[in-house]
């Protein structure tokens, strides 16, 4: 493990050099306190103190829309399995989003492996960025224990006033810090400042919901019949925003698109959402989650129970996006709190 520092004066220089050699994506302000990962060339284009982006960086791993098979009427010879991929550097990824990427990695590297995802994953370099403070009241990263760096990145940056503390976590990261000579060795006082920040964070980042996350699966199973689910169902518009913005949601739909010659075409996939009508409908008209309340319940259970049972990992990172985006004001933290109250009764 190697630790470096990058002085603030050199930061702009670092980003410019980085952007000369690589395709760099960073958080860009879109107005109205909304942010988005976008291609950048200079540090000035980015906003480093940002609320989680509208769509998490998962869009670089599983694009909203991708074609994965090109084929035609002759079947055999002209069929090509394809993947669109480009080498990228993601700068400024928050710890919650890194946790999201880690969750997706598990899904797509679980056998059988999805090489469209995996070959893109190989092409992405991740540079994390620590949150020194909460982004807003929707976040529950402390509850999910994702407010501190915990692997899953190549480099990790912590802003300590005059300088960034940089943790080099992989060889890939090391190659970059070697090729851009703007870093200095981290000394004892730098480590001390880092520890100071972590100590301050330990005081401010406290469990937002008041439930140990290990207990959530049990709370959910015991409140399966709760009326809270119906309340959510009455409010929810089934717009699917909560799942599309979630860093760990990965459902997709597949269909064919033909060209006008009606002889050649491709097979594509696009993000799908368990909140959408028709998502769980089968031939014969039966839908396994016809009620919006059942779909909301499915969403919570998937985040906090099903995936825990399957992969021993929570599929909520605490980023708060789902609550932030919901126009019906369905709030994840509030819902968990209410469920807990009901459970305690």
């Amino acid at each position: 493990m190697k630790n470096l520092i990058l002085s603030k004066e050199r930061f702009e220089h670092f980003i410019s050099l980085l952007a000369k050699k690589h395709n760099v994506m960073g958080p860009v302000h879109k107005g109205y306190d909304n942010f988005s990962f976008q291609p950048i060339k200079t540090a000035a284009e980015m906003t480093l103190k940002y609320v989680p982006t509208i769509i998490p960086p998962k869009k670089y791993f599983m694009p909203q829309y991708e074609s994965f098979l090109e084929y035609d009427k002759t079947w055999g010879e002209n069929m090509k399995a394809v993947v669109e991929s480009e080498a990228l550097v993601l700068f400024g990824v928050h710890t919650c989003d890194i946790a999201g990427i880690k969750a997706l990695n598990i899904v797509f590297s679980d056998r059988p492996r999805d090489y469209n995802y995996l070959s893109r994953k190989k092409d992405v370099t991740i540079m994390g960025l620590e949150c020194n403070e909460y982004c807003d009241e929707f976040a529950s990263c402390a509850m999910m224990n994702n407010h501190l760096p915990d692997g899953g990145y190549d480099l990790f940056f912590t802003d300590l006033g005059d300088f960034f503390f940089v943790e080099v976590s992989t060889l890939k990261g090391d190659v970059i810090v070697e090729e851009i000579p703007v870093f200095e060795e981290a000394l004892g006082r730098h480590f001390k400042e880092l520890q100071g920040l972590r100590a301050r964070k330990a005081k401010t980042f406290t469990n937002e919901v008041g439930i140990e996350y290990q207990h959530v699966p049990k709370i959910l199973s015991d409140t399966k019949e709760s009326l809270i689910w119906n309340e959510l169902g009455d409010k929810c518009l089934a717009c699917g925003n909560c799942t599309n913005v979630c860093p760990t949601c990965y459902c997709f739909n597949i269909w064919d698109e033909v060209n006008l010659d009606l002889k050649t075409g491709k097979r594509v996939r696009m993000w799908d959402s368990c909140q959408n009508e028709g998502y769980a409908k089968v031939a014969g008209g039966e839908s396994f989650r016809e009620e919006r309340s059942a779909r909301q319940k499915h969403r919570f259970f998937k985040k906090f129970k099903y995936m825990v049972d399957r992969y021993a990992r929570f599929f909520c990172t605490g980023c708060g996006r789902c609550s932030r985006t919901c126009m019906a004001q369905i709030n994840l933290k509030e819902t968990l709190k209410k469920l807990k109250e009901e459970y305690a009764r």
Partner: protein
Amino acid sequence: MKIQLKDSLYTLVRGKVLRTRQLTELEKLFEIALPEGQSLDHEPGQFVQVSIFGVGEAPISICSSPTKRDSFELAIRKVGRLTRALHELEPGDEVGIRGPYGKGFPVTLMEGNDIMIVGGGIGIVPLRSLINYIIDNRRDFGKVDILLGCKTPKDMLFGDEVETWQKRVDVNFSCTVDRADPDWKGNIGLITSLIPGVNLDPNRTFAAVVGPPVMYKYVIQELRKKQIPDRQILVSLERHMKCGLGKCGHCQIEHFYCCQDGPVFSFDQIKDLEGAI
């Protein structure tokens, strides 16, 4: 940059339609061979993803027994876009095939035990694969009971084949319809009504149940009355599926993916799951 992948989960192999046969107004049987006499090598209860260029892809159960090696059969009900297009296919036409996928019936576990088969309506499709497998390996299994049910006699799929099962000395066969026509000589009523009459030793009986969603609950109740242990009750579930590979999320039932962990489950696995049955 577009890269061509050497191996992808989604690559199709070419299947050639050898023969087709109209089973009922809505269902049609397709016999399909893979290139160069390749065998599909499936387990009874597994499914394949069938594609038509430009139209799409759908999961379809393999309804022939693995003992038939040079080709396999699919029975397809015309319900929508792809299935309608499939019905237009003629011998010689080609389709794309991926699979076989999923967990089928655990035939090695079932060997040496008594078998009870309960099929409702289109549920006979995956069961036919199992039945024919058992018949082809008849001496590896104990007593075999087959119970079938459907709406009316003319909805009975594979009628002539069912007749041959009925005539065999080594299986006990019974059948019921909801509504009879004048020629019908069998039972009338729900399939659950046939179960109490079966004589069985619960500890050495495996029951394989496939049918429309509403059927499971009642059939399983009857089987449990017969003391068959939950892990020996096998069901095949249908869910919306897109990838068949445990990725697209549609078929999730709690922590299971129906496509990978199923479609065949033991009742034991799923009895506590929300919305499984």
